[in-house]
């Protein structure tokens, strides 16, 4: 009997954790760890359990649901660590190095997104690597596309900069057709607006 009570209590508390669902992200300025972004429209902040693999201080926003669009913010990735996390010891996740140049950031993201969808489950390509200033920091933006097995194709954009030897990276993915275009302008404006809060 005692075991049953313990089981029910544990289940209750676990489910209690799950009911923390999506929360509204109001238009305006938002701090994500040490990074600040400006949103001109409202988004929904996904709970951690809905976006497994994201780092503790990362946030995932969406408009129409994570399968259709997602805006991901990963602040302050330390030197030698991956952008996403995995429990699998053989995942061979690519890691960030503080000396990375723009082309290497592009490759890091490409390989990371392959791992995100599952190795062999997606062909990911990047294009239009271009310079972009994030506040006081030189950074880059580029386009990304993921052709995924048994899933829509996702197109997106990525913004990234290195500050204090840490990587600040954001990306937007939208499903083709329709959803990518629907939120692109909004998402691009938010990514472009990113700055390091402590220095601004």
């Amino acid at each position, binding site marked *: 009997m005692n075991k049953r009570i313990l089981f029910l209590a544990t289940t209750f508390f676990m489910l209690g954790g799950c009911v923390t669902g999506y929360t509204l992200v109001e238009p305006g300025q938002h701090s994500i760890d040490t990074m600040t972004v400006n949103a001109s429209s409202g988004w929904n902040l996904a709970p951690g359990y809905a976006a497994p693999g994201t780092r503790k201080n990362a946030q995932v926003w969406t408009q129409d649901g994570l399968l259709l669009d997602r805006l991901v913010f990963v602040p302050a990735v330390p030197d030698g660590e991956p952008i996403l996390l995995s429990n699998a010891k053989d995942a061979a996740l690519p890691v960030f190095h503080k000396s990375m140049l723009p082309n290497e950031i592009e490759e890091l993201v490409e390989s990371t997104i392959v791992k995100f969808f599952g190795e062999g489950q997606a062909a990911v390509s990047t294009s239009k690597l271009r310079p972009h200033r994030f506040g006081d920091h030189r950074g880059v933006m580029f386009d990304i596309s993921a*052709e995924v097995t048994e899933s829509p194709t996702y197109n997106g954009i990525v913004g990234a900069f290195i500050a204090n030897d840490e990587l600040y990276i954001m990306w937007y993915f939208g499903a083709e057709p329709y959803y990518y275009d629907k939120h692109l302008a909004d998402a691009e404006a938010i990514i472009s607006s990113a700055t390091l809060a402590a220095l601004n």
Partner: protein
Amino acid sequence: MLLCGSPALAEKEPLDHKIPPGYVPEEARDEQGLWMEFEEMERTLNKSALLVRDADINNYITEIVCRVAAAYCNDFRVYVIRNPGFNASMTATGMMQIWTGLIIRANSTDEIAAVVGHEIAHYTRLHSLQRLRDMKKKLAAGSVFDLAVILATGYSTPLGQMTAMMSVLSFSREQETEADLLGTRILAEASYNPHASYKVWQRIIAEEEAAAVKRRKPSAFSQTHPATQQRASYLESLVVSTYGEDDAESVADEKLLAILNNHYLFLMEDQLDTNRFGRTKELLERHREIGVEPSLVYYFYGEMFRQRNEEGDMQLAMDSYLHSIEAGAPPPDAFKSLGYLHLKSGDNTAAQIQFRKYLEIDPTADDRAMIEFYLEE
């Protein structure tokens, strides 16, 4: 033909096809149901973004399939899937999938044909149907066992069903051995080199040994198959005893080389994106040996060393890009990557020289804005 003349194999290997060409199930309802499932799967596959639609690659693979399949050729629809892993599969309906990872791992067309022969043998031996029936029987028995456990102890456990699943897997390994044996026979009958049937596994072993990060689970193709080493050994014994030692002259496989040379960039970029540098290096070694365009192979050596970023790798990468350029037909990105390496080492002048060459060769490069940023600095 070679097989019929071999008493040794005739004794050891009585296997033959179970169904005639053009087979369609007419009576068994479970088999008809299985076909409907696979037909639905094929409709989905037809829409996959990862389907390789390039005519060269599809014609190359389809030609191999038809040659090995002989009278069964029209039973198969071949789908080449963009996936850098090592795999091929076949359904009861004749839907064959070949992953691009098989193409980059083969040293010859014969090795691709060996895998194709194995898959065709699964089809003609009705292995999917056997598995379905075996699984149904064992799961039913497992459920009875689980029910007995619940009645006796009051606890619910899926132990019986789990055991049933394990035994289905084990049975499947027997089927894999059958497919190996019949596959090797039809490979030889199609006048491909039967020695390819074990060489393809020897290469998988070599790749696993070269891997920096070992996979905890074997690849999709290997996990239901006999242990790779064991399989390579028994196939080698079988082939040598039946067909004699491999005395085939080592000549360039022009068809495979044409496919690799024409599509190397996307094939190897997918491999590079796996971030598995030991494996990629092993593949590059093989491609260099079999005669893939050196400019392409050395370009990817450069990419692999640069991305691996271990001690000494920057110099190895730089040397590789220079080799690629000296070989005469480098991709434009070889100049760009070399430029970035110079930039990293602090030699901005050398970097700008390479960046200018890159833009000269590829004036419409989609990262022109980034390169011009560095040229203006």
